[in-house]
């Protein structure tokens, strides 16, 4: 179980980092083009927007796991006994169910993109719309892992904070 979590977390972190890297490079290229340092390029703005969508898509599951996807827990965590644990489990199950219920709609939205093409990059928009599908799958996957972890007593459902947040 821990190996699966580590593998998924590692993959999502790398994909999120690559998306951010693409954003940084594309914006610097854009700025260099506008400053006259290099020939101006038309695709940089589109590429940065699309990379931002994939940054969100790959990062949202991780942000759920780390607690960066904020919640209001003052009431739920103040309850006695096992109730906070039970509410954390219910919330993880709802999050997972929300994602799963949306997959058909997200798939339909992706398929709409087949008929469109990005104006400057020239890529088919279903590849870009897929960011929403990835986001939903990522969220439900990490929520499912929390549910399993809580039911198998390998975790208590509280967030695993990022080092930057300590």
């Amino acid at each position: 179980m821990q190996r699966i979590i580590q593998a998924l977390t590692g993959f999502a972190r790398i994909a999120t980092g690559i998306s951010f890297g693409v954003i940084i490079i594309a914006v610097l290229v854009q700025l260099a083009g506008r400053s006259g340092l290099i020939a101006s390029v038309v695709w940089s703005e589109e590429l940065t927007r699309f990379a931002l969508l994939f940054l969100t898509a790959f990062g949202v599951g991780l942000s759920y796991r780390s607690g960066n996807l904020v919640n209001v827990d003052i009431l739920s965590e103040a309850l006695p006994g096992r109730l906070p644990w039970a509410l954390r489990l219910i919330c993880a199950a709802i999050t997972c169910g929300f994602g799963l219920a949306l997959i058909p709609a997200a798939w339909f939205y992706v398929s709409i993109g087949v008929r469109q093409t990005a104006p400057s990059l020239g890529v088919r928009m279903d590849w870009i719309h897929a960011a929403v599908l990835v986001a939903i799958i990522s969220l439900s996957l990490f929520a499912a892992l929390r549910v399993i972890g809580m039911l198998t007593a390998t975790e208590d459902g509280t967030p695993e904070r990022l080092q930057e947040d300590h």
Partner: protein
Amino acid sequence: MGLTILLSCFLGGLAIGLPVAVTLGVSSMAYLLHEGIPLVVIPQKMYAGMDSFVLLCIPGFILAGNLMNAGGITARIVRLARALVGRMRGGLGLTNVAASMLFGGISGTAAADAASIGGMMIPGMKKAGYPADFSAAITAASSTVGPIIPPSVPMIIVGTLSGISVGKMFIAGALPGILMGVAMMVTAWIIARKKNFPRQEWQGWDELGHAFLGAFWAVAMTAFIVGGLLIGFATPTETAVVASVYAFVVGAFVYKGLKLRDVPRIVIDSAISAAAILALVGLANVFGWILVSERIPQTIANGVLSVTENPFLVILLINLVLLFVGMFMETIAALIILFAPLLALATGVGVDPLHFAVFAVLNLMIGLTTPPVGVCLFICADIGRVSLWQVTKAIAPFILTNLIVLMLVSYIPFFSTWLPSLLN
């Protein structure tokens, strides 16, 4: 009935501790199912909400702040602030506020400010003989100045929602931010005199010079961000990315505190923090679309304007609504849900959108320091090892100060519109 379902699911989700973004999504889904509207609206509106060039500022400024912090900037900023104001009565309290103002020019989020400055200042103040509750309270209160002084993540969100220029909003926040900082310093000084808090020795011009040189590259980043926007060298988005590169160069090669092997982790952690905000924006866009479809903004605006068209009363009402909501709700979610309805109301009585944006953000920042859901209050109480109740009592004078500043900024447009008018 549809609206009742929407709001019940929303409040229920918040109450059980569901993430705010998921709560917005689940309640929107319940509404759509009830109304028989296809669920494809959710991915469609999520995509539309997140597909914005302006939102690129968010990961950029978060990364710049994290890189600067890892590069050892916090200690340098605290040293400069201490050399500037440390010799006054309650000098470390004033140092705390000054450090938050300087740090606010880098990070753009109050929680980052509270954690970074608090981690260094609260233990230091306790060691120097300041009460733990005062140390935690002043850190929490002053951290809220961060998103008022540019850059500001909440202002980027407002720009995305309303089309108001993010660059102009950044500039508009500068004066109110300084006003807030100075007012909190005065409050800290009055409390320090009354309670006879310690005074640091004047460390001399040499120390001030060294401290300034030490923090120069960090302080220059704020000047670089504001200056870049003022002269039109770069858009806010480009400024955010260039600021990250600048923070990397300063942290790794000038301050030499940033280890190259830590950079990938910092980049990814910053991206994850940004992803949480962007997902919230995407799902809130679905929720916001439902509110607009149900004509909620117009209904609220018309309802209030039918009772009174007195600008004084309408601004007061807007502030009371934002203060109340800010006590319970996360800043960005509150902005996404309430900004459009309240903007319609504010412009209905002739308030400039830029002016409204500044006092709305300032207002919600106060909510970060009030119970029951005051993020900065929680962070500082935790660092100071004091109870939430003790910090809540100690922060009361600072909340009062911020409320006075809020009233000044709300009723005197000059504070938020003068600097942007120079851009024209």
